[in-house]
């Protein structure tokens, strides 16, 4: 490295930018690290803290209409799903388990809302994946979804016994997440 035109000049007094040149990207990486750990499925909802919208919809597969109202008296989980929603398959098992438990203990209630779907497609989905042990309502034109502020499926709402919406979960629900939300409803997970 002996090059006459390439003599290194003393770099004293320029040290600060060296630290900055490493500190800035490092800070960015740390920020990204934190943001990866962040749970992007917890989304604020205008509904949280407010009474659940009253709903009366036809039941998938026939039978009594499905009703939701603020004076239901039971902690309720409302799950929006559709046959075209890939991530709904991921959470299917968790919901079925919750539904079975709700049926056994009676301490809570689950309601599915089949959102913007065809009835035959929805039934085929349930035949493939296993039926929910609780009723699903048909929200064919997506109107109920709009009332809940749903923007991507699956979404799940957790409603306390007094009819207040406690939380909104976007994306597939895991067992652990369900447990945390149930505590908020006062149901032992």
């Amino acid at each position, binding site marked *: 490295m002996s090059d006459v035109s390439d003599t290194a000049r003393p770099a004293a007094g320029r040290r600060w930018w060296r630290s900055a*040149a*490493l500190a800035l990207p490092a800070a960015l990486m740390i920020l*990204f690290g934190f943001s*990866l750990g962040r749970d992007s499925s917890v989304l604020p909802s205008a509904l949280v803290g407010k009474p659940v919208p009253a709903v009366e919809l036809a039941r998938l597969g026939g039978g009594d209409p499905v009703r939701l109202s603020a004076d239901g008296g039971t902690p309720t989980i409302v799950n929006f799903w559709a046959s075209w929603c890939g991530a709904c398959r991921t959470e299917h098992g968790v919901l079925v388990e919750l539904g079975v438990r709700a049926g056994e203990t009676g301490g809570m209630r689950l309601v599915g809302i089949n959102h913007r779907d065809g009835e035959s497609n929805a039934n085929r989905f349930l035949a493939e994946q296993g039926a929910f042990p609780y009723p699903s309502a048909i929200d064919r034109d997506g109107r109920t979804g709009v009332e809940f502020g749903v923007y991507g499926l699956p979404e799940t709402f957790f409603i306390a016994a007094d009819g207040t919406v406690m939380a909104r979960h976007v*994306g597939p629900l895991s067992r652990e997440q369900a447990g945390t939300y149930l505590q908020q409803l006062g149901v032992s997970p």
Partner: protein
Amino acid sequence: MSGSLIELGMVASVLALILTVVAAVLALAGERLARPAYVHVARQALIANFALITLACFTVVWSFVQNDFSVAYVTQNSNTRLPLIFRLTALWGAHEGSLLLWMWFLTIYSALAVIWHWETHPRSMPYVIATLAAVQFGFLSLIVFLSSPFTELIPPPPEGRELNPLLQDPGLIIHPPLLYLGYVGFVVPFAFAIAALVRGTAGAEWVVAVRRWTLFAWLSLTSGIMVGGYWAYYELGWGGYWAWDPVENASLLPWLTGTALLHSVMAQEKRNLFRGWNTSLAISTFALSLLGTFLVRSGVLTSVHSFAVDPWRGMYLLVFLAVVTLGGFGLLIARVDTLRTAAKLDGTLSREAALLFNNVFFIVTAATVLVGTLYPLAVEVFTGVKLTIAAPYFNTVVLPIFVAIVILMSLGPVIPWRKANGKQIIGFLKVPAAITAGLVVLAGIFGVRGVVPLAAVAGMVLVISSIGADVGRAVVNRSAVSGKSYLSSLLWLALWNRRRYGGLVVHIGVVIVAFGILASGLFVETKTVALGPNDRFEVGGYTLTFKGLQTVDGPNWVARQADIEVHDGDKSLGLIHPQRRNYPRSDMVTTESAIRTTFAGDLYVVIGDELGEGRASIRGYYFPLIIWIWVGWLVIIAGSLFSMSQRREKARIASPAAREEAVRS
């Protein structure tokens, strides 16, 4: 049978992964132990990787063509009703395949770099090979271990799902590959920057190696951004082409630093200035390309349909990004002193000073965009509050800098190297400035209001007229010397100075783009009306008659279509058909706007809600001169290709610079 074909793709990828390790180890060992044969094997390994990844891509594409739903990636992104052209391009329809395409481009660039520079840059080659192999290793590990497009489904489902309907469009077929071609292209300057830092030398040969790769990557990235903008314009139905969306900003960041590099590398070539700075720009540009990939692919930026993101992928990409960025900058900091030269700026009125200002403007813009893009993320991480930084912030901060850049463009290419004096500058700019003043007054009379728009008009006119004056002077001189006509003198000058004249053409293209942006933004006309059959309304001087609604069936969609007759005065211009398409398999609706493009302006019509009894709400826009944005892009392509076609620099490096390369280290 084709089940085994996709396994072949996996095997090829694993082999390629092994070869990246072989290449990196052998290249460095060959250098340390002075065994040129090792380096040669490393080179062949990178070339072999091109063949292997080509094969891997082919297996995925062929599985799409064959509707092979035993391949999970095919099932998720295709079905039997998807037209063949979209099955061919579904490779980059989702995460896994996009990464494979990224990887394929990386192997192409790597193979070409080691082939083309093998003879001219023997000293840098071991480090270039090792760097390229390391980057390949990073991406291939992700593909093989965390993001495999080769996963099989047993038993295969009878039918697949659907390619994202937004991607079922010619614009979005070519937008991602162009963007990746740009992102990945900066890997070669990056590899040469690493080599320069390790060796402690970045001579003229470095500039030659870096400049054309940077220009090509820059052109691809520019084209990717432009095509993306055009797609957004005609497909998304809101008439805009750029929204300062985080994903868009991610593509703008490497473009900004890449543009800075493209310019400042000239100062190194001509005056041996900015050597350390250029290596840092090369590293930053590639790091920002990776940042873009990370932001889009990790799910860090919350996007409506990015739920099923595997957190390990994000973590992996983050670690990879950190290794490249911190490694690159760490090396830079440790070694940049070896790149210092005694050369310095001679005066503030000089080409090199203009280039310095150019760099300052581009870096400030990049920093602004970076902060605006990441600030919401930082706020959310630390306070949990979700917020978005919208267009007003960026427009307020970035547009004035862009106007300053345009004004600088008028001076930069004509100002002499080393030192100019005020008199020379006034001499250069006298006539252009007079023309500019006249046209700015004219623009004011025609209704251009506000400081920024008027300054933009001034900058644009100044650029064109100063380029015109400069070229005009050169042509007159050449004609006087050679005795030939002006036209043949111009051709002679351009052919012998392709880089300079190509660059000037690019500048003209940029001005045309700016012109389209400014005019369509300032004079847009829009109207939303509720229409029944045979109702009419006017927009942009056209009369539109609503003929009614009908349902149209496509291969995998059903559309509601409005038929609208367009009249210009009494003359009928025929029917236009805006649509709303419903893709039942993915339950998505896309807007197909009807656009009637002329060089004077675009009539742009979208169909809104149906109001019953055959009535519908219709929105019409008139964007004056908007097509010039993309005409300017074509001019930029022409200028860049013309500039790249100059091969004389090869002859130049054969002598002093190549010797320099050989002597050092």
